[in-house]
């Protein structure tokens, strides 16, 4: 009797659930966003229900209740863009440089991604709590956008940018509809880094907002539908991942669960363990091969291209005295191949990665480091490790090929002043290398001898997103063959790829020599036998 009641209850529950799901309204553009997240309805808060005309005022309103939030954010790498490594401050905001716009300083369009308001020069107050941009991460309305022209502020007035209308933000609406960061919030910066969708990473672009199962088995809404935070767990606004001063994962503690990683590390093993296949012949690989090497067979596996090279040395050319843009088709998608403002690019989709030993940390070169121009291409952030290093494993990398300006006397990479009004030396306004390099060096407090040239540089990006379904992972022969993907890694013996020249020569000699000997012997036997037979007949 009890059982049948329980069954009945269960049935009613199920049917009401399915009813609820069918009754759900179709999503439309005008759909109202719920303001209730977690246990608070932000639309009911008086502090937020007022007219805002300046975004930092919203932050002050947030901080009335979330008293510690800004202090927490101030401590994170998202805020400082700088970390002390081996006694030197490195990072986007300090000395660090990359293969894209080289340095963030002198380039206000870079700071549109900083989670703060108004970082345009040295005067920016990193201590001011109202400068923290809560909304860029916590907006759920998709109406909050940062402007390239105002160093991280949103659009306060309607503006036409590049022929597109950018609507002024309704700060009250956004402030009353805050919530947990969604993929759109993270990807707004992390997918668009380096100047556009897919430019930087090769495994992180806007397709991850709603990827197909074939593109990303974890994030696809078809199955697991992971948010970014499911792996990049956070506490006190500190989000796990690789920073300049800390590793993405601790490889010698492979089986550590996510909880015990204290929010510092994130890796496949956190959830899957180091030996998840239950097949010895596959699991034995994990000591030396990262999951990503087999399970992310190509980079930029989605619809978008990723930028593979950027040659600054050709930038500055004009047609009829005017800057121009040339497009080409790369792997079926049209993209810029040349821009007067930026130089020459190549792009790719479904690109085979390069493989390197990696321990979850990259050795970041700084603008203070001396380079040896004869050693070009210069590795600006190489992964370290080798076969004999128990912490290092083989990882797939996007190696972005750059060509950027350097001081031929002082032998240092030179930052470029890119963004600004005419007369400031900004390259994108004046297309004059000398002025832009002088201004760039000044902004970064660096010496500049006045003589410069361009040098090839390699930027390293570990590939870890866009995990393919298991049946699309790499086959054995991708590595265990003569044209192995791992041909760049020569510090160990790899079955199917490697052999010893002397043993191969011996083998060829023994086997073919043996065969020739046997055949000659047999022919000789046949020949002499026939002769003996004919001799016998004659007698």
């Amino acid at each position, binding site marked *: 009797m009890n059982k049948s009641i329980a069954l009945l209850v269960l049935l009613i529950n199920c049917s009401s659930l399915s009813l609820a799901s069918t009754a759900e309204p179709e999503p439309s553009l005008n759909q109202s966003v719920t303001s209730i997240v977690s246990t608070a309805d932000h639309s009911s808060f008086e502090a937020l229900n007022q007219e805002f005309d300046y975004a930092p005022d919203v932050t002050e309103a947030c901080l009335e209740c979330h008293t510690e939030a800004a202090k927490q954010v101030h401590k994170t790498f998202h805020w400082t863009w700088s970390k002390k490594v081996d006694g030197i401050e490195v990072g986007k905001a300090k000395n660090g440089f990359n293969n894209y716009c080289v340095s963030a300083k002198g380039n206000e369009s870079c700071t549109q991604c900083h989670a703060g308001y108004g970082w345009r020069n040295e005067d920016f107050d990193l201590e001011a709590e109202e400068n923290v941009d809560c909304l860029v991460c916590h907006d759920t309305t998709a109406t909050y956008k940062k402007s390239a022209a105002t160093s991280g502020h949103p659009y306060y007035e309607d503006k036409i940018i590049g022929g597109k209308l950018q609507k002024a933000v309704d700060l009250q609406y956004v402030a009353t509809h805050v919530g947990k960061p969604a993929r759109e919030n993270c990807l707004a910066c992390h997918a668009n880094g380096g100047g556009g969708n897919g430019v930087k990473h090769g495994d992180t672009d806007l397709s991850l907002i709603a990827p197909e199962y074939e593109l990303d088995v974890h994030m696809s809404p078809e199955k697991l539908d992971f948010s970014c935070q499911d792996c990049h767990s956070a506490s006190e606004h500190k989000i796990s991942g690789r920073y300049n001063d800390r590793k993405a994962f601790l490889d010698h503690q492979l089986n550590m669960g996510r909880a015990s990683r204290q929010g510092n590390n994130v890796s496949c093993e956190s959830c899957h363990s180091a030996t998840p296949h239950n097949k010895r*012949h596959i699991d*034995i690989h994990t*000591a030396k091969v990262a999951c990503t090497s087999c399970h992310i067979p190509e980079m930029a596996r989605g619809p978008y291209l990723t930028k593979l090279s950027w040659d600054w040395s050709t930038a500055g050319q004009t047609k009829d005295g005017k800057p121009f843009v040339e497009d080409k088709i790369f792997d079926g998608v049209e993209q810029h191949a040349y821009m007067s403002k930026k130089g020459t690019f190549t792009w790719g989709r479904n690109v085979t990665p390069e493989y390197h030993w990696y321990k979850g940390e990259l050795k970041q070169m700084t603008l203070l480091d001396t380079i040896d121009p004869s050693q070009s291409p210069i590795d600006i952030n190489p992964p370290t490790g080798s*076969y*004999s290093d128990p912490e290092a494993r083989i990882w797939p990398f996007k190696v972005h090929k750059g060509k950027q300006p350097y001081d031929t006397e002082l032998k240092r990479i030179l930052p470029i002043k890119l963004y600004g009004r005419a007369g400031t030396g900004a390259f994108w306004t004046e297309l004059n290398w000398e002025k832009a390099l002088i201004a760039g060096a000044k902004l970064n407090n660096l010496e500049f001898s006045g003589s410069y040239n361009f040098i090839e540089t390699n930027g390293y990006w570990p590939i870890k997103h866009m995990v393919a379904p298991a049946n699309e992972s790499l*086959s*054995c*022969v991708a590595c*265990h*063959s*003569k044209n192995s993907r791992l041909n760049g890694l020569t510090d*160990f*013996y790899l*079955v*199917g*790829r*490697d*052999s*010893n020249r002397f*043993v191969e020569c*011996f*083998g060829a000699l*023994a*086997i073919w*020599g*043996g*065969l020739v*000997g*046997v055949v000659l*012997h*047999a022919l*000789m*036997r046949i020949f*002499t*036998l026939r002769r*003996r037979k004919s001799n016998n007949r004659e007698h």
Partner: protein
Amino acid sequence: MSKAVMIFKRFERFWHWGQATLVLLLMLTGLELHGSIKLFGFGESSNFHHWAGFIWSALVVLIFTWIFTTGEWKQFVPNKNGLDVVLRFYLYGVFIGEEHPHHMSAENKFNPLQRLAYLGVLFVLIPLQIITGLIFFFFPELRAAGLIEQIGLIAVVHTFCAYTLIAFLLVHLYLITLGRKLSSHLRAMLSGKESDDESNNY
């Protein structure tokens, strides 16, 4: 009517053909793992190679047990006397129709050249191949235990032995045609018997 002599005992024939099957499979899959041929696919070849390798290891343990408990090991003691005569036969005598200088019997199965060759193959090459194979297979565990860091040298020795075994197999297969009739030796390895008048070991 000739008298049939039992030369190869039942277990001896079993291990010979068992070993023949396993070694052939190991050679083919090994060559695929080495990147020399394409056959089953790398994954399948690896699987077959490992299974065949372990079965072979077990068989070889049985073979040695048998050889040492039956006293058959005496058949492998090198006998330098008569080596030159056998060599002369293979290089000259066989072409002019001479009789084989070695007379095969149950107590003295092998001619001096065979004694040497089988001693090398069965007691040196095969154990070395199996031991390097086992180290190869258990390399991840051995490395984790800190006993071995690189597999390169083991791999090279394993490949060297494999090539030597392939070369041996070629000559071995050819030499079975040197019986009184082409099929005499093959028949002996199947039935175990050589008829008395055919027991001259060519």
